Each structure stands twice: as C-alpha cells, then as structure tokens.
C-alpha cells in the first residue's frame, strides 16, 4: 500500500501548488445541490492516487444518491476495493482534520462509535458547509440583487444625465442664439442712434442755413423798400440815364453788324452745333473703341503665345519649362535695364548740352558785363567833362512820364528758398529741373543738379549787396544812400529776366566764378564807389534832359 503525500488544503475550492493531474469528473453530477456548487473540476487536484483507483470506483465515488440508498451495482466500497476505499477515505479524513481509520495488519481497528462519530463530524461539516453555502448564496443573491438594482439605477441615472445634458445643450443653444440676437439688436440700436444724431445735426445745419438765408432776404426786402420809398419821394427828375459814347466802335474783326435774325435760324444753328458735337464725340468714341479692341487683340495674342510656349515645354520636361520661364524673366529684366540705360543716356546727353548752353550764357554775360563796364567808364569820363556839378535825382512818379523807354523801374531782390521734391544726387532725378530752366536760357543762371541753391544764392546776393554794384541783371540793392540807377543798354534787354521767374538760383561753381570775375573786373571802381554812384545819377539825368530836349525839338 502506498502512502500518498498530499498537501492539506484549507479551502474546499483551493487548488494545490503541486502539479496535479486534473481529475476528470465528467460524470459527476451534483444533482442534490441544484447546481450551486461549482463543478468538481477544481476539486481535489491533489488526488494523484486516483489514477490507481479503478474507474468504476471513481465513478461511484461521488455518486450522490439523495436518498442515501446504495444501488446494487454501484456501491463505492466492495469487498474487493476495501482497502483502497479505506485509504481513500483516510485521505479525506486526514485532510479534513478528523482522525483516520487505523490499520493494523489488515484489520481496521475502528468500531462503530468511530464511524458514527466520523459520520457525525462529517455531517456537522456538511451542515456547516451548507450553512456557509446558504449564507453565501443569500449574500450572493443579495449582492446580485443589489448589483441589479445598482445597474438599473445606474442606467436610469445615465439616461437622466443624458437627458439633462441634452436639455442643457438646448438651453445653451437658446442662450447663444438669444445672445446673438441681442448683439444684432444692440448693433442696430447703435446705428440707429448714430443715424438719429447725424440727422439731428443735418437738421440743425439746415435750420441754421435757412435762417441765414431768410435773414438775408429780409434785409434785401428792407433795402428794396428803402429804395422804393426813396424813389417815390424823389422829386428830382431823372438824370441822364443811358450811354454816352464818343463814337461807336467797329465790331471786332471788321464784321458787319448783322440784322436781328429770326428765332428759327438761331435755333437751327444751335441744333446744328449740338449735332456736330455729338458726331464728333461719336467719332472720338469709335476711335477709342478701335484702339481698345486692338489692344485687347494684341494682349490676347501675346497671352495665347505664352500659353502655347509654356504648354509646349510642359510636355517636354518640367525643367525645360522652368528654364524657359527663367529665361523669359531674364529677358524682361534685361529689356527693362536696357530701356533704363538708354533713358539715362538720353538724359545725360541732354544735361550735357544744357551745361554747354549755360556755360555759353555765362561767358556771354561776362562779356556783356565787360562791355557795359567799358561803356560806363567812357560815359563817366564824358560826363565828367561836360557836367561837373551834381544833379539830384528825380524819383520816378508813375503818373508822370509817358512812354519813356529809358525810364526803368527799380527791382528789389528777394532770395527764394527752394525745397526740391527729391534730395538725391542722381543726374537722372534732377534732370526735370534742368528742363524747366532750359526754357529760361536767356537768364545767366540756372539750377545745378541736385544741390540746394539756397546757400549759394544767399552768398551771391550778399556779395552783390555788399558791393552795391549794378550789373546787367537788374538786381539792385536798396540803400539809404543815393540810389544807383543804371540804364541798361539794349543788348542787356535780352538777358533781363521777367520779374517773377521761378528758379534764378546759381550753381556753386558759376557763382564763385562770377563773383571772382566781378571782383576782378571792378577792382579799380571799388574805391570811389559813392562818387561813381553820384556821377551815374548825373549822367542819367543828363540823358533824360537831352532826350526830352530832342523830343521837344522833334514835336
């Protein structure tokens, strides 16, 4: 007889750790327990020894007969397998902690009491287990009821929550819409308020304007009444009303005075004019239409050409098209640059020619000045010979002399402060300025490219004022000392600028050179300036007298 060691399990359902072959209790049917006890698969996995037990015994081992009857052919313990059964039962008893059947030489020492006690123990165990089972079952039942209850409440609450969520969503949506409406309405209200304000302001201004007009009309009525009153009261006969004409004039370009033609002819003429205007306008519009059509066609052609080219290269390869595009870009850039360059070249040449002209003008001016100076010196010498005494000057009265060509008005200098639109040094930018002054080429001065002439102008003006010298340009200073009147000779008249010229400013180089020329040429006059001035005046007066004398003689 083999003694099998097995682990003692605390619980009924616990599996042991020793690897055990699973006991196959497929035939086990716990009918007496109405299926509440778990299947016996997990049970007794320690039972190695069951392999040794014949299958008939295994089958009958747990055959539970509810009534306790043993069926004849299916008894657990028979004569044959007594020992085996005893071993088996001992196993269980030991496991449960009850004293086991004792063996001695093939005899079982157990007596009836032992068996009854054992039976009692087992029954007690059974009752306990049943109680536990019932307890567990009730607990289980209760728990399952509770879980059902919980689940149902959970489901209900979830449903409620969903519904509430939906309601909340709806409420939110409503509030959002109401907010939107509110915003719209408040916006409308604001615009309406503004509109009201604006209309009130308009009404106010119209009111004011109406009142003003009314006042004006009232005042006019008052003055009309006054006039009427005056006329009614006026006993004096009308003075000669009408036109007093020395002699009738001839109309315009020798046109004959026409008779009063009838209305129809005039109307016809007017309509003809209207029609001709319309015809002209139509012609212009047609021309414009043609131009626009041509333009559109050419654009269309260009566009289609471009598309064809790009389409063609697209079929070949993407790179090619890209290169074509870049080549187009390059081409256009190059063209643009070429155009710019040609423009700049043109401007440069224009500027160059302008400079040339300027230089020529300067030299002319200097030459004229020299001639003038010489002439003046000669005259001075002559005058000194003729008239040793001083003659006071007569101030020009505008109501006096008539047609005195020699009588020249004084001009007062003023230095304008010029701010150019662009302060750049490119020759290109300032060329337009040049162009403007080119028209005034007769002036000896013109604007240099890009430089602000204020300083140079001021300098020259100062220098001129310091010298108090007259020049062929009628720029004179106003002094309290005897006035210098200079009668310009005829060549100078060409160079005399119009009184209100825009840009008579100087180039730096030109001004300095001119100043130097002034300084050099009048070095000898500088000393006895005042006497010169006086003698000039005397010369002038003498001239006036001579001329008037000749005129008198002539008339």
């Amino acid at each position: 007889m083999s003694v099998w060691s097995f682990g003692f399990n605390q619980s009924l359902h616990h599996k042991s750790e020793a690897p055990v072959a699973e006991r196959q209790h497929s035939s086990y049917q716990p009918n007496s327990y109405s299926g509440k006890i778990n299947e016996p698969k997990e049970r007794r996995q320690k039972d190695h020894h069951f392999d040794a037990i014949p299958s008939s015994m295994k089958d009958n081992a747990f055959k539970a007969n509810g009534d306790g009857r043993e069926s004849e052919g299916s008894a657990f313990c028979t004569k044959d397998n007594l020992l085996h059964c005893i071993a088996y039962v001992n196993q269980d008893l030991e496991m449960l902690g009850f004293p086991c059947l004792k063996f001695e030489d093939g005899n079982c020492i157990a007596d009836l009491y032992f068996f009854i006690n054992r039976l009692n123990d087992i029954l007690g165990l059974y009752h306990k287990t049943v109680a536990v089972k019932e307890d567990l079952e009730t607990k289980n039942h209760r728990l399952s009821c509770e879980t059902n209850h919980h689940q149902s409440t959970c489901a209900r609450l979830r449903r409620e929550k969903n519904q509430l969520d939906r309601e909340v969503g709806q409420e939110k949506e409503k509030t959002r819409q109401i907010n939107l409406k509110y915003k719209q309405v408040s916006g409308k209200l604001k615009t309406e308020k503004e509109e009201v304000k604006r209309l009130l302001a308009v009404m106010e201004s119209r009111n004011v304007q109406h009142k003003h007009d009314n006042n004006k009309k009232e005042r006019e009525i008052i003055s009309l009444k006054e006039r009427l009153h005056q006329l009614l009261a006026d006993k004096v006969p009308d003075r000669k009303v009408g036109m007093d004409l020395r002699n009738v004039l001839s109309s315009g370009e020798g046109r004959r005075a026409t008779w009063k033609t009838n209305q129809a002819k005039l109307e016809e003429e007017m309509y003809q004019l209207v029609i001709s205007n319309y015809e002209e306008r139509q012609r212009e519009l047609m021309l414009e239409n043609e131009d626009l059509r041509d333009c559109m066609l050419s654009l269309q052609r260009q566009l289609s050409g471009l598309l064809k080219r790009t389409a063609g290269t697209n079929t070949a390869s993407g790179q090619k098209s890209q290169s074509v595009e870049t080549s187009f870009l390059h081409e256009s850039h190059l063209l643009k640059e070429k155009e710019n360059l040609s423009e700049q070249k043109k401007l440069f040449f224009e500027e160059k020619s302008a400079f040339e002209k300027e230089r020529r003008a300067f030299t002319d001016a200097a030459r004229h000045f020299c001639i003038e100076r010489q002439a003046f010196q000669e005259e001075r010498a002559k005058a000194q010979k003729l008239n040793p005494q001083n003659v006071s000057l007569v101030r020009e009265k505008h109501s006096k002399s008539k047609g005195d060509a020699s009588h020249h008005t004084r001009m007062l200098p003023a230095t304008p402060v010029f701010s150019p639109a662009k302060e750049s040094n490119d020759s290109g930018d300032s060329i337009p300025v040049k162009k403007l002054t080119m028209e005034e080429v007769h002036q000896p001065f013109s604007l240099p490219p890009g430089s602000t002439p204020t300083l140079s102008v001021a300098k020259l003006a100062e220098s001129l004022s310091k010298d108090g010298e007259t020049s062929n340009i009628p720029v004179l200073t106003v002094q309290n000392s005897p006035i210098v009147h200079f009668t310009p000779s005829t060549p100078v008249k060409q160079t005399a600028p119009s009184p209100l010229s825009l840009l008579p400013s100087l180039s730096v180089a030109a001004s300095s050179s001119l100043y130097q020329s002034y300084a050099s040429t009048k070095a000898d006059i500088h000393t006895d300036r005042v006497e010169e001035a006086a003698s000039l005046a005397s010369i002038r007066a003498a001239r006036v007298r001579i001329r008037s004398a000749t005129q008198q003689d002539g008339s």
Partner: protein
Amino acid sequence: MNFSELFRQSLQLCRFSPDGKYLACASDYRVVIRHFDTLQVQHVFSCLDAVQCIEWSADSQFILCGMFKRGMVQVWSLETTDWHCKIDEGSAGLCAVTWSPDGRHILTTADFHLRITVWSLVTKSVSYIRYPKKCAKGIDFCSGGKYMALAERRDCKDHVSIFSCQAWALVRHFETETDDLAGLEWSPDARVLCVWDSCLAYKVLLYSLDGRCLARYSAYDLALGVKSLAWSPSSQFLALGSFDKKVRLLNHVTWKTVATLSHPELIESSTAIVYKEVETRIPAAPSSAVSKAPTASLYASQSKYEVVPTPVKVPTISPATNKANPRLGVGLLAFSHDNKYMVTRNDNMPCVVWIWDVRKISLCALLIQTSPVKCVIWDPSRPRLALCTSNNKLYMWSPEGSLAVEVPVEGQSLLC
C-alpha cells in the same frame, strides 16, 4: 527772384490784360496801365468816382471801370485815348458789370438784380433781360463766345436762358430741376452746361446746349451739398467739392463718379510729398549803409519748406456748427491748365493745400503752411502753383519742388 517796388492799389484790383501785354491797377479813382515787362506807366485814366471793378475786354483793347456807388461804368480805350464811353444806370443802380466775349457789349446788372442791361458799343442799342437770379454764378459765357447762359427766377422756380451772343437773342429757355440754383458753368468744350443747387441739397444737373437734361447727380441727401465745382480743361472730368470734405470726379461719358478723393487727417500715402512750412527767426543781415529801418525788419522771420516723411498729421480746426456756411468742406478747387494737376483746400484744414495728380487720381503733394491759405492760383502756361497766406511771403509749388520767398519791402522812404 526780383520784385518790383510797391504800387498803389485799392480793393486788390490788379488785372493782367488777356494778351498779357499790360497790367491794369486801380487805386481809388485812378486806373493805371503799365507795360507788363518794364512796368512803365502807359496810361492813366481818371474815373468819376472810386472804382470797384475793372475788367479788360477779351481783345485787350478796352478796359471798363465800374463805380457801383454812382451806378456808372466808364470804358477806356488803350489805342485811342481820347475815346470815352460812360454808361449811367441812374436810379436802377449797379451791382455787377461784365464784358461780353466779343468785347463790344457790356452787361450791367442793376441793384437787387432787377434786370440785366446789354449795352452795345457798336450800335449804341440797349436790351434788357428781366428776372435774373441773384446767385454765386448767374452768368456764364461758353468758350468761343457763341452762347451765354443766364440763371433766372420766375414764379419761384429756377430757369435757364441761353442767348446767342451774336444777335443777343434768346435761343432757349427751360426750367431746371433745382430748388435754389446756386450757379451754372459751361464745360470748356462748350458742349454741356452744368447747373448746381445751393448747399441745402446736393444736386448737380447737366444740360445739353438745347436744354435737355443729360444727367443728374446727387451723392447724398439732406446734409449740406456742393461747395465748389471745377471743370477739367479738357472737359473730361467734373470735380465737385462738397461739405463732407470730399471731392468727387465725374466722367464726361456716363456722368458717374470716377473717384472720390477724401481729405483725411492722417496722411499715410507713400507717393505724396509733404512740404511743411518752417519759420525761422534769424537776424537778416542789415544793409551795409546806415539804415534807419525799424528794427523789426532786422529780425524778420524767414520761411522755408521742409520735406516731411509720411505719415503726417494734418492740422485741423473744428468749425462752429451753429453758423451758416460753415468753414467746412472743400471750398477751393482748381485744375491746372495742362490738365495734369488739381488743387483743393479743405476749409476745416485752412493751412493745408492738397495737390492731386489727375492722371493717377491720387495725392501728389501737400503743402502745410503756418497760417491760413488765402489765395491759390495756377500758372496759365505751366504746372506751377502760387499761393499766399496773408503774410509777407509768396509760395510756389511745381512738381520739381516748392519755394518760399519773402516779398521785399522798402524800409524807408528813399530820396529827397
């Protein structure tokens, strides 16, 4: 730059003759004709009373002097100085006088705009036109001098009469749709007559020569309307300056707006050049001789323009809203004679002059002065603008730049 000495004048009556040869200057009862170049006196005419108006005839042969207080007009001839003409309106009084384009007829307007009399210097005949309207611009002659448009008011309604200037006969007479006609102006090509309403209603009407209404334009309702109006010299655009501080350009084909130019307080345009007048008080160098000039002239303020980069804030004044004809809106509007530029002034920014490029329809230059601008005039031959602000300086603008020059004034009397 040279300035002549001061000449006497009264009421700013200085007019150049149309051919540009003479300058007429009226001072009290005398009218002085000078040669434009040498400023020498050619003629002096003495009138019977203080002169309020002088006008050259179109062929520069004659000059008329209107004396409104006496109700008389005197006409002088430049060629034959002994020729004279005197027109006496008598008790009817005189409030305006003008030449006709042929230079041989004179139109006088009697007091209270009772009637307009056409005096012929050729036939010595007289014609009367009744019911002329008293408005800012009631008479306009078309270029070429063929027709004259006259605003009339009969039976509390506005009418326009078109007269032929050769025969002085009425050619067309039609009623306009305005409530209170404020002015009329022919287009420079004499095809269209523009008629505008007073500022209480924004209404601009365009009539053809025979009186058909070609178009109506109204930018907005109720608020104050058109303040100034100008045709472009090619008749392509009609510029309307209104009290809402905007200028609207209408095109001559459809009479709809091509552009609306506004005058904002903050200029951010990068293409416009802004010139700001800067006054510097520097002691001017006194003349070297002993000067008895008052010391104020030693420290005269000099002005120059500074180019200011955008953005620029424009100085604005807010006008009183309880006064009629408020200082608000575009009151000055003029095209340059080459049709390239247009100048405007917004009256609530009185120190600022706006210059627009017509080809691009954008702001091209801005001049900010230190005092309110009083008078702005284009050069008749080139794109150049002259303006003054009632100080002693003259300002000019051209596309190349702008300049400021002080008009020199003699400090003391000069001679014995």
